[in-house]
């Protein structure tokens, strides 16, 4: 195991990594920007070192500053947390070139999984279903109609050179398809100078489900079940839970087993997450892989009792997993509420300022991962995550009940938070019945959603 680890991150995840280092007997050095001098991870660290100004480009995102800090403090490993430099293969490479260990997948593994299209192809070849689409580009209208028939309506017409929704149309019938092809071609031509189009199956009521995996250096891997992250706002996750409501045991087993088989075969290493879209009938399609620890990892930790950050450290240190799939037991139900400094009543406007009073909830099955304390000043430079409230219960109903109590008990005075949206979710029929889909909050609108919940 490492003797001294540099934590190149901030906020709740810096605290989380620090705790894991302590539990493994490694010293923790926290690298911080000037804006985080008075933060909890800095105060709790064995050592802390200022690496730059508040601007993340010159501190948390500066590979030379982070590596220099690790060298002058005598660290033998760097944990990047999530975001910032966590999936930067160039950074991982330079860390190793300076004789230290990058706690995460090795640089060559990060590189292999860096491109979304490339990863879909790679893991598709190892047995993961990907979203069905046309074979190559559409040659003409006849070809388009034949391919759409084969894929099955509704389909999405997409330009080859693309982005920003330009030249994209969802069609439900062959007649609609015929009528939009010409428009899409001219839009694509105008926007990208290239009018080639292709088709992708349209999944309108889908869930976002992800599989947590861990693979050691020796190609031994386990999955740690899945998480449902369907509650999103503009593609930002708000609430995550496990197990996924309404997912049958058979589909769950198929999804998780295929996921771990594919990543092991493709040569993945360390802890990671595979994201899928799951449609109403339980068909799942691989979307992308996240080569890092994720914000919502405590959901899985609550169900399995496995310390995922410690597992990252052990794998990076070259230790074998030491457990097999049969050793991973799943118990009960867990829900994570992301507590953000943002105002749901005003289009989730982010906030900053001084926390005048902070009280974390407690009780059985309640975990609060947060860097807040009374008097802490939330800096305006970084993301709005203030902490994560994770509740566990032997079943979903108990977890929800404990969630209600804990959200009620949580006090964060002085900063507007999104706690209201969580309380609205826990009052909504759609959520209580486990029928959340990724488009729900955006479709209904958060304000309408809050108002509806307030009437209940």
């Amino acid at each position: 195991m490492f003797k001294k680890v540099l934590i190149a991150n901030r906020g709740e995840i810096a605290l989380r990594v620090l705790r894991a280092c302590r539990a493994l007997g490694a010293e923790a050095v926290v690298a911080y920007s000037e804006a985080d001098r008075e933060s909890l991870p800095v105060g709790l660290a064995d050592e802390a070192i200022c690496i730059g100004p508040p601007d993340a480009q010159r501190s948390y995102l500066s590979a030379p500053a982070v590596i220099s800090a690790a060298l002058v403090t005598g660290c033998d490993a760097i944990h990047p947390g999530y975001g910032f430099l966590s999936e930067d293969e160039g950074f991982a490479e330079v860390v190793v070139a300076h004789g230290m260990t990058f706690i995460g997948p090795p640089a060559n593994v990060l590189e292999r999984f860096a491109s979304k299209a490339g990863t879909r192809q790679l893991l598709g070849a190892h047995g993961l279903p990907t979203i069905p689409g046309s074979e190559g580009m559409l040659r003409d209208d006849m070809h388009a109609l034949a391919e759409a028939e084969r894929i099955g309506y509704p389909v999405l017409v997409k330009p080859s050179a693309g982005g920003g929704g330009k030249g994209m149309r969802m069609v439900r019938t062959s007649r609609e398809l015929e009528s939009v092809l010409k428009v899409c071609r001219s839009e694509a031509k105008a926007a990208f100078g290239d009018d080639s189009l292709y088709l992708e199956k349209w999944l309108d009521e889908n869930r976002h489900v992800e599989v947590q995996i861990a693979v050691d250096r020796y190609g031994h891997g386990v999955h740690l079940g899945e998480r449902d992250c369907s509650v999103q706002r503009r593609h930002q996750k708000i609430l995550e839970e496990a197990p996924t409501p309404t997912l049958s045991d058979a589909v769950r087993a198929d999804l998780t087993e295929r996921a771990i088989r594919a990543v092991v075969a493709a040569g993945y290493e360390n802890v990671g997450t595979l994201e899928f879209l799951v449609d109403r009938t339980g068909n799942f399609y691989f979307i992308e892989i996240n080569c890092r620890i994720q914000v919502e990892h405590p959901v899985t930790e609550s169900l399995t009792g496995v310390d995922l950050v410690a597992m990252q450290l052990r794998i990076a240190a070259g230790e074998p997993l030491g457990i097999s799939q049969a050793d991973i037991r799943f118990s009960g139900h867990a829900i994570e509420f992301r507590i953000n400094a943002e105002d749901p009543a005003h289009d989730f406007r982010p906030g900053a300022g001084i926390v005048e009073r902070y009280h974390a909830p407690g009780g059985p099955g309640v975990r609060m991962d947060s860097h807040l304390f009374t008097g802490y000043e939330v800096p305006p430079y970084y993301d709005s995550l203030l902490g994560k409230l994770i509740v566990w219960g032997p079943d979903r109903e108990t977890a929800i009940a404990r969630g209600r109590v804990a959200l009620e008990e949580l006090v964060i005075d002085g900063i507007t938070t999104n706690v209201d949206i969580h309380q609205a979710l826990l009052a909504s029929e759609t959520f209580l019945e486990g029928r959340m889909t990724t488009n729900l909050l955006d479709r209904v609108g958060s304000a309408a959603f809050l108002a509806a919940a307030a009437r209940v």
Partner: protein
Amino acid sequence: MPDQVPADARRSPDDDERAADHAAIDRLTGELLPALIAKLGRTGLGELEVREGAWRVRLRRPAGPPVGTRERRASDRGGAERSMDRVPERPPRAQHLHPHPEPPATARSDSRSVATSPAVGIYQPRKDLTIGSRVRAGDRLGAVDMLGVAQEVVAPIDGVVGTSLVEPGEAVEYGQELIVVEFGVPMSTNGTGS
């Protein structure tokens, strides 16, 4: 730019070799260099070197403008209390948890200012600098080596070099106080500071 070109390729009149050389130059300027420049930009590294066969390409970032030299309170943080050396008591010291742990800004002295570190790395003062040397604002007082790239430490004000708060070759963090510069001190005093 390549600082090494295979000499035999230059000398040879052979068309094939010349064509190969041209192709290599085309590839270098068309693909490799833009990719390397992009990589250098992304990583923020100071220097990048790539070898391929007889070719070697080294990119070095020009030294950036000096940063982090704003004036500071002389009483802000002494050398002995640098946070990279400190081992906090556990649980964290109470002052960490106060909303305004900084002392009130009453100790600001107009007669002295402190040059601070522009980066995290190893500090080296300018060799010819001694206590009492006259400097102007913006003069180089030394450098902090951050992963092989020297970041300049500059004088915050016109004045006379005073006490060094850090030894040469010592590790320093960003913003750390390095050298006191006294303002308006007569040449006759030795300017050792407080």
